[in-house]
């Protein structure tokens, strides 16, 4: 049994991190502290480098400069398997290689926790089923993923991350393809995870979801500039209008600002 203990909740830090987007000058170096219990939203227009940042933090791409630390340890020096016990990522686009059922897909999340000779145990299956239940896709568990709708696939992907149970959750547009109810359900689930001590770091396109659920915001401008901080300081009309190059009207809903793009 090589099943390691749950890792101690650690802060994920980027130090002078500059992401590598080929053909673009260096962006503003990022010094983020992504702490347990926080929910980060990354906002920016198309092509600002949100996905690249997420992949860099997940260790799937090398940064142009700077480093990533998990606790005091550099992630570059960690083994992939150990790293993926601590960091998990939901991708924006997924490719179907061979046909697989929903349950098989979610079970893949246990991979970093099992030794090469180990088969998935009943506990692992139960864990995957709990995750599918939480994402409201348990009734689809024997269906092939390729037969699901976009929103159902998105929820299966999040359930896979939940089965992986890393400490830090990285998500690339987790509300993509989701209907309104499931958008809220997913954001509530992420809030729950944060309360349980997980760190959540996600790219979002919907400013209003970010305003409602995120406590920290990173704004990424297309020219490489970036600023970050508590949500209430970052989500101000001026900054957002400059970010998206779009004039906005602001209304208040449930005591929180709600941004609506103006026509023309």
């Amino acid at each position, binding site marked *: 049994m090589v099943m390691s203990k749950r890792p101690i909740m650690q802060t994920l830090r980027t130090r002078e991190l500059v992401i590598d987007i080929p053909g673009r000058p260096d962006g503003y170096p990022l010094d983020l502290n992504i702490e347990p219990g926080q929910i980060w939203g990354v906002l920016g227009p198309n092509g600002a480098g949100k996905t690249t940042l997420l992949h860099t933090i997940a260790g799937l791409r090398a940064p142009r400069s700077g480093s990533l630390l998990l606790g005091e340890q550099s992630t570059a020096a960690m083994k*992939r*398997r150990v790293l993926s016990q601590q960091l998990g990522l939901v991708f924006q686009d997924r490719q179907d*290689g061979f046909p697989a059922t929903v349950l098989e897909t979610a079970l893949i999340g246990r991979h970093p926790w099992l030794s090469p000779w180990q088969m998935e145990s009943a506990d692992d299956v139960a864990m995957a089923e709990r995750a599918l239940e939480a994402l409201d896709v348990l009734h689809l568990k024997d269906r092939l993923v390729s037969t699901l709708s976009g929103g159902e696939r998105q929820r299966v992907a999040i359930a896979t991350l939940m089965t992986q149970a890393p400490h830090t959750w990285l998500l690339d547009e987790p509300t993509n393809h989701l209907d309104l109810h499931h958008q809220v359900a997913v954001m509530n689930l992420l809030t729950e995870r944060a309360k349980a001590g997980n760190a959540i770091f996600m790219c979002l396109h919907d400013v209003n979801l970010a305003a409602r659920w995120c406590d920290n915001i990173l704004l990424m401008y297309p020219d490489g500039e970036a600023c970050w901080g508590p949500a209430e300081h970052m989500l101000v009309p001026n900054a957002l209008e400059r970010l998206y190059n779009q004039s906005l009207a602001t209304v208040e809903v449930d005591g929180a600002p709600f941004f609506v793009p103006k026509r023309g």
Partner: protein
Amino acid sequence: MSRPLLKPLLVLAFVSLASMVLSVGTGSVSVAPGQVLAVILGEGSNLQQTLVLELRLPRTLSAFATGGLLAVAGALMQVLLRNPLADPYVLGLSGGAAVGALLAMLAGLGGFLVSGSAFAGALLSTLMVFGLAHGTGSWTPSRLLLTGVVVAAGWGAVITLMLAISPTQRLPGMLYWLMGDVSYARTPWPALGLLALVCLLVAPLGRSLNVLARGPMQAAALGVAVRPLEWTIYILASLLTATAVTMAGSIGFVGLVVPHMLRLLLGNDQRLILPACAFAGGTLLVLADTLARIVIAPEQLPVGVITALLGVPTFLYLLYRSR
């Protein structure tokens, strides 16, 4: 989870054994299944001893080893390229091996040197395809597949050229080798050993392969060291193919048809599919070779003709169905 893996494998192992007994018993002089086992245990007449132990059993075992090697190699390639149409033969490996073998035959060499030369040709082709597909940029499945197809076409042209300039008396041997024929095989034991060894080697990699089948980025995010794993698969698949081609010439489509059928029946868990491929691929080739021996007896067909007749429609059907 481990019991559902065991049952299909036991069934396949039994089917393999039955097909081998059938194959050994079938021919100009037939031997009953019970008799086959008795002879293997050292009983029976001198004639039966010679017939079974010296003539038929080595050939049957060679067919089994060749089929198993090709099917496992095909399954590995399909995971590597995330494409159910991948097959070591589509990737130009057999072309390289054929050119190697024909060069040796053209030079009037025989026996071991033909095999060695075929092996060298297969490995050379592997290095070429992977080196060129890697190039300066990234290493995408479509690039690899296209490079393989083009290299295979190149080998095809070289083969035609060699056949055109060969002296007439060498042609029949060359053609037979190109069509794939188990009767060329010498001893089955090294190939059987390699097959067993590779099945053991890939067993602990099975789950990593399942993850890799979801795409390299997802695999990396789940803790798989993608690049080393991809190289391991490619080298293993090349080694398996080169060994099979060296034993029996170009036998196509086993690596395509067998994994595909098994995936339809048993799902996509590579921990099950890979050993299942060894059994089912071996069984298919044993049966195909038995057929090749008896269809126009006393003449024999090259077994590659039989597998191609099975494989081409399957391949076209798959292409037609794929979107």
